[in-house]
């Protein structure tokens, strides 16, 4: 029962992703992407990683995707944009990259079939995650914080200039 739930979540995630990336309307695509992320969160949970699942929902599907929503709203892409997207999605454009990607997938699949084993079924609690995170991985946390700071500064800088410019014009 639980296993079928897992595979179902996987199916949903993949389908939603494919749909998301083949949309012409950005908002629709975003909705599909959120669905995909939620499905992945389910998979995390089922694999015994509840903390990761929670973060997937809160940060990914919640915060990051909302950021996309804001930007799409600010850009205010209309019907014309959709029309153009449709033109850009002509088969002759996607057929070669897709073939390439499929070859890569086959190669990866061949590699993955070499691996055997299952997930352990042990739940890794948030407590354990926290202990490890602030134990051996302290340096990584610091680096991540610096990365976030850099992202913050960068986004502020880019955003401010574009806002200044829009005010001037």
């Amino acid at each position, binding site marked *: 029962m639980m296993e079928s739930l897992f595979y179902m979540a996987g199916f949903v995630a993949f389908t939603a992703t494919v749909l998301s990336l083949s949309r012409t309307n950005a908002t629709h695509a975003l909705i599909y992407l959120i669905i995909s992320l939620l499905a992945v969160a389910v998979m995390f949970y089922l694999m015994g990683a509840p903390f990761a699942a929670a973060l997937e929902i809160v940060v990914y599907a919640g915060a990051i995707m909302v950021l996309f929503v804001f930007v799409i709203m600010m850009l205010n892409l209309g019907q014309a944009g959709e029309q153009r997207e449709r033109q850009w999605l002509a088969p002759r454009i996607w057929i070669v990259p897709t073939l390439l990607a*499929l070859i890569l997938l086959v190669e990866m699949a061949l590699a993955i079939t070499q691996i055997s084993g299952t997930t352990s079924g042990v739940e890794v609690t948030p407590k354990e995650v926290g202990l490890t995170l602030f134990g051996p991985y302290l340096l990584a946390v610091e680096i991540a914080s610096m990365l976030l700071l850099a992202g913050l500064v*960068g986004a502020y800088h880019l955003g401010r200039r574009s806002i200044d410019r829009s005010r001037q014009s």
Partner: protein
Amino acid sequence: MPGLQVPLEHVLMMAAALFIAGLVGLMVRRNIIFILMSLEVMLNASALAFVAAGAHWGQADGQIIFMLILTVAAAEVSVGLGLVLLLQRRFKTLDMDNANRLRD
């Protein structure tokens, strides 16, 4: 609640499939918004692989790497979307192919 015991290769195949989907999106789409989304998908797919591996060993490391990926994704998206806005304001387009000034 104890976790599920699924074959690792299935999860990894799932991650690979998601990754490839994101890759195709990256190669096919010209709209920068979609490109960013594709990147998110690819990051997410790799995160899935890490979590699966963590679950295989029953250790926290997989989730920690997931968190680091999350940080990277957040930083990338914030800067990336900043660039999107800039691009739209300056060139009135979201077409990545038009923004090839990098070449010179």
